[in-house]
């Protein structure tokens, strides 16, 4: 395998593997937020704010993988 094809593979693998964890995490966060909403519908605004923050934290990890693969692809 030459360097160029290894780079292509690494690009795809970096974002592909890096999206697994955050995907599961965001799913859990969204599901739990809806569960909390079902129990306590009055707290909608604070649940929504907390959910978006938590999703941003989880998503940041996918973004790190994305940055790695962008760097691999375009440099």
């Amino acid at each position, binding site marked *: 395998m030459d360097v160029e094809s290894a780079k292509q593979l690494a690009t795809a693998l970096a974002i592909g593997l890096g999206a697994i964890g955050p995907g599961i995490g965001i799913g859990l966060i969204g599901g739990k937020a809806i569960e909390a909403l079902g129990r306590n519908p009055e707290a909608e605004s604070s649940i929504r704010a907390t959910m*978006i*923050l938590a999703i941003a934290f989880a998503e*940041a990890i996918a*973004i790190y993988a994305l*940055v790695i693969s*962008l760097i691999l692809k375009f*440099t």
Partner: protein
Amino acid sequence: MLHISIKPEVIFTFYGLPVTNSMIASIVLTVLFLLFGIYFSGAVGRSKSKLVFFVRFAIGKLYDLFKPVTKEKSRELFPLLASFFFFILLSNWLGLLPGVGSIVIRREVPVSEETIDEPESAATRIVSTPIIRGATADLNTTIALGLFAFVAIQLLGFKYLGWQYLKKFISVASPIAFFTGILELISEFSKIVSFAFRLFGNIFAGEVLIAVIAFLIPVLASFPFLMLEVFVGFIQALVFSMLTAVFISSATAEHHA
């Protein structure tokens, strides 16, 4: 072929200072922002224009959003947080305007980097550089913003807690406290990286996504993605300022340990 560059490109040099395309965007944005701020502060009590009312409405909503997080410090912290929010929001949206990234200047540059073997050859190739690039689609801008947020967090921590603030990091009360202090210190510095990469990654990935879709299907297909990016730009601006608010309020809170 697609023109995607991960780093901003130099448009011209100003007395030896290289001026990049994202720098132009952020300077334009800052000047417009400043002018509007001056106009707004003069017009806020008297003018009945829709724009002034809309901006007042938006600022009010934003204040209500930050209030549960920053509590009694809201009046002091709100200018910083709102500046972060509006600057990031407008730079994200500036990158989505038609013409940004598609208005280019073409220049002939010598092909010297690749063909060092024949330095005398007059071979040139045409390089097209976009004049404007969204400011937050550049890692330099986002690292600057992250550093700013970091410094603000530390300064406000010192302001409210004095030297007590350092107790969180350096503690000899017990071995465990000492160890968690080191961890706190590392996590404090990783905030810069995480702020910078989160914003840069989201916005740059959005631009790449739109460029790729427009390259695959030229007509109309990138429109839903454009709407998605408008939403993502808003959410990222909100997340950046909200995280700063959360970190500041946790740094300034008296902790009982």
